[in-house]
């Protein structure tokens, strides 16, 4: 089934086997024939699949970060992380309010910790 196609400049991924992990994952996890096995593995949750793809394919994720701590720090996935983020934002705002109320130095108080996450 590998027909050699001559033609216009083919894109780089062209060939019987792509090396793109996302392409392979979405096919082997989510496609193909499903028959009941003796050993039940729940691979078909699409949302989880998407999350896994984010985990495994994103070039900015390090292998170490792809561990359990990632789940705990992504606000989209963890209400605890969301609360944590809110608390941090609250603290930043409080600091600024304090700085403003001390306000005789209009604007001279360089806001601390302005760095986004």
């Amino acid at each position, binding site marked *: 089934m590998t027909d050699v196609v001559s033609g216009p400049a083919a894109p780089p991924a062209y060939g*019987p086997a*792509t090396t793109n992990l996302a392409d392979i994952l*979405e096919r082997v996890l989510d496609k193909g024939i499903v028959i009941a096995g003796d050993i039940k593995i729940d691979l078909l949750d699409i949302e989880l699949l998407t999350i896994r793809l984010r985990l495994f394919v994103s070039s900015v*994720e390090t292998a170490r970060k792809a561990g359990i701590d990632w789940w705990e720090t992504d606000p989209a996935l963890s209400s605890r992380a969301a609360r944590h983020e809110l608390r941090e934002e609250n603290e930043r705002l409080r600091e600024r309010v304090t700085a403003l109320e001390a306000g005789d130095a209009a604007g001279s108080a360089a806001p601390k910790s302005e760095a986004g996450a």
Partner: protein
Amino acid sequence: MTAHPDAPETAAATYVFAVGRRLDPAVLAGLTGLAAGSPVRGLTFGPLTAVVQHVPAAEFTPEAWQERLSDRAELERCARAHHEVVTGAAACGPTVPLALATLYRSDDSARRALIADTHRFAATLDRLEGHAEWGVKVWVPAAAPERPATTAAPSRRDGGGAGRAYLERKRGLHRAREHHHDRALRIAEDVDAALRRLAAAARRLRPHTPDMTGEKDRVQVLNAAYLMTAVGEKELLDAAETWRRRTGADVEVSGPWVPYSFVGEG
């Protein structure tokens, strides 16, 4: 689990990769599969043959899989190994891939399950014979958030010209973004419609989001799979080139794939 700790049946599980009609043992012998040191082999059932391998049962429990799914290197290894065996088997003739992690406690147990589905496998093999799957992705530039030229208009008290200009700029940016967005979606629909006309079957897959692709400068607006005959492949490649030229979008083609997306399920 069964209660024979020393029986080979409890030591090894049977992993099923794919089903075909005739498999060439020589082709399979070159494949590693998921467990080093255990051959990838054919398991006949009725008129068909499954591609299987014995794997250590203890490493393939549901718990082990859950762990594996959160271990990047390990999941990648398994996905690629599964795909390599499926692709290798397909060199022998029409092959239907099974989803990752289809496991049985023994060859006999696997055979019983497969036999029960013989008709379904045979029908799918008939339908897919002579076809291959091709993946097509369309990307457009990520809309660059153009910064409005900050013409520091002198803030005069009469007229509010600065305010109005600011709103106009905002509106202009918004319109430009919407236009870019609409055009991107239209390109995706047009490319898909054109390629569907060439294909025996077509499916839209979920486009990969920027956090999956890690791409900053372009956005994937189409991720689709097309089932093609050998004749259709050339047409598909030509059409991809045409749309590339016509729209300036990146149209990426991958294939031929074993028809994972067309085995007739979700």
